[in-house]
């Protein structure tokens, strides 16, 4: 085993997507990075795991049984633990392109984006219209409402935040999104699918917040532009699952000199006064004899996921999640091999939306004939969590296997990290995409490096020794 350097610029703890993107970017920019994970695999909470590991993680089988055996080769399964999709025109896509991590990954479209209207047996499911033309054909609205929605979407397309002549006489600094909807005379159900299935707000808090309209408009445009990029839905997804993303960025980091150690426990964080000065750690493979390889190294900064610093984070909410294996597509979704289906909170008497994200063998995440659907929402009560997810589970039809653990705490750091040079990421939240993850990445970069992360041209001027 080779020696570990005596000092690094940055030690990164945890190989989730946030940490791996930051590790990659910092290595590209010339920092000496040591990247550690206590697990034997990449990805942390953002990993994709095989079906045997999934059964073992949730423990929902009797001793002596091997229920995964009826699902074919276990390694044909790559089941995401985080239910998220990439917006085609989103910031993660931009980072993938500007770092060339796209070289290691292949992406495929998500086939459809759907929204539920109504509740119980009378509920209907419809495709989310993405532009003015689709709005006119949508079954979500009556004939007059379609025209109003078309006018609204055309206005959104032409909106420029710094050009008041495109603001329809509204003061964007003080008006609310309700004022905007009122201006176009949109009905409640239309506001619902625009706000929740296009702007992708999980609650209705945005509607009455003053000055929030430009954010809502930007989100609707992101949806529309992402949709326009490839056609079927605003989402793309990496073949073999989301767990490929952290691996791709870890490879980028390694190419630029980053050192990777899995199976490594952090024994002690070392401080010099208030500031972090290094770590003691032990690398030991599972089942390995002896004490493992113990080492100590200095560092100026630590970036970490919340699990490495339980005393420096707080819980902001709980995510409910059920991973379901199906052997059929979801009813009323045009037999789509993959989709997002949103059940807006107002339709089912909740405060938070329920999301369904489904992928299948079309994305090399399971054998042919199977579908993996994850139903998720934010917990609103203290008990009976399965009932909170029920409207989503009802949409799935017959379920072969269901994996649902206790509510998952969502953490965020208590401090910015300026005082101790320990910069902690947020947990993956309940949103259906990675836009908040890239916000967190940029925020951590700003806190740790004291400057903005500029995504464009990240690798330009950073010569690879032997690149083509």
């Amino acid at each position, binding site marked *: 085993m080779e020696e570990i350097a005596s000092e690094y610029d940055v030690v990164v703890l945890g190989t989730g997507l946030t940490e791996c993107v930051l590790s990659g970017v910092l290595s590209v920019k010339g920092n000496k990075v040591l990247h550690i994970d206590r697990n034997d695999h990449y990805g942390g909470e953002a990993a994709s795991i095989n079906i045997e590991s999934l059964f073992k993680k949730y423990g929902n089988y009797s001793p002596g049984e091997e229920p995964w055996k009826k699902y074919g080769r276990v390694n044909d399964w790559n089941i995401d633990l985080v239910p998220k999709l990439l917006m085609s025109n989103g910031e993660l896509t931009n980072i993938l392109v500007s770092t060339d991590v796209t070289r290691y990954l292949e992406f495929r479209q998500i086939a459809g984006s759907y929204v539920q209207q109504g509740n119980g047996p009378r509920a209907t499911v419809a495709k989310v219209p993405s532009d003015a033309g689709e709005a006119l054909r949508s079954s979500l609205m009556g004939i007059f409402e379609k025209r109003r929605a078309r006018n609204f979407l055309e206005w959104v397309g032409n909106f420029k935040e710094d050009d008041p002549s495109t603001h329809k006489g509204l003061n964007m600094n003080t008006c609310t999104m309700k004022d905007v909807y009122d201006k176009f005379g949109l009905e409640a159900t239309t506001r619902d699918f625009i706000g929740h299935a296009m702007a992708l707000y999980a609650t209705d808090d945005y509607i009455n917040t003053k000055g929030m309209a430009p954010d809502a408009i930007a989100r609707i445009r992101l949806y529309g532009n992402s949709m326009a990029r490839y056609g079927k839905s605003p989402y793309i997804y990496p073949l073999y699952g989301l767990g490929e993303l952290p691996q791709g960025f870890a490879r980028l980091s390694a190419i630029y000199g980053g050192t990777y150690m899995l199976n490594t426990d952090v024994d002690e964080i070392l401080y010099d006064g208030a500031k972090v000065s290094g770590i003691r750690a032990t690398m030991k493979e599972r089942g390995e004899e002896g004490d493992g390889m113990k080492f100590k190294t200095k560092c100026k900064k630590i970036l970490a996921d919340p699990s490495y610093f339980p005393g420096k984070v707080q819980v902001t909410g709980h995510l409910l999640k059920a991973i379901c294996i199906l052997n059929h597509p979801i009813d009323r979704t045009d037999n789509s091999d993959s989709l997002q289906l949103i059940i807006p909170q107002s339709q089912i008497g909740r405060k938070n939306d329920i999301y369904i994200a489904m992928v299948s063998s079309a994305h090399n995440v399971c054998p042919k004939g199977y579908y993996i659907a994850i139903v998720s929402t934010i917990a609103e009560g203290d008990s009976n969590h399965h009932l909170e997810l029920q409207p989503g589970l009802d949409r799935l039809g017959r379920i072969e296997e269901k994996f649902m653990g206790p509510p998952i705490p969502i953490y965020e750091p208590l401090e910015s990290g300026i005082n101790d040079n320990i910069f902690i990421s947020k947990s993956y939240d309940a949103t259906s995409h990675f836009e908040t993850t890239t916000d967190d990445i940029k925020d951590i970069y700003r806190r740790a490096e004291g400057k903005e992360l500029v995504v464009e041209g990240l690798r330009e001027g950073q010569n*690879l020794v032997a690149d083509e």
Partner: protein
Amino acid sequence: MSARMPQGGRQGGSRFAQFKLVLLGESAVGKSSLVLRFVKDQFDDYRESTIGAAFLTQTIALDESTTVKFEIWDTAGQERYKSLAPMYYRNANCAVVVYDITQAVSGPKPPAVCAVTVLTVPVVQASLDKAKAWVKELQRQANENIIIALAGNKLDLVTDSPDKRAIPAADAEQYAREAGLLFFETSAKTAENVRELFTAIARKLPLDQAGPRNIRSGVQRSGVDLRPEASNTQGAGGCNC
């Protein structure tokens, strides 16, 4: 963006196929040097541990009408602490497992820097045994039909002084035969057998299936290209809303 080149096919009677090749082996056995010799016909005596040589391509013309393009993945040093990602093995069509023929044992070098304490007693292992472990790892993680070549590198060192040899060629050859591997002793420094190694791999690849990703060509066709120029609407500024 070589990875997004056409993956294979037939044009005017000539065949072109592209394959993913991965390198494996312990640190400092010369994996990157072998590739650098093959791709750029260069050698550097004092090459640092791999930085940057992570994605190279080289084509071999097997005959007048057949061209094979290798998309070569280097470990980028992630093998050092056994932290290679599954992505590395994914869809690899062929692999070169490299060992050092002058190295009988390998263990941790004495710590060069004071802050390091290595408490474990290293398992003394011949470098060929380590190569065997990499072959096992490949068989566990990679495609079943992957073509594996075993390369005993640093042949130049024993040509000058035969007593430096630690692994008899016959031992490695016998193992390779039993395990169904191609086998060459190579020198990245003198270039001996380097081209021969890659050509032998190219000849063994299933050219009629033309290309690595054709196995999943259905996916390839429907995949999306994220590059801005690949999209008509990107960058136009407007929104289709």
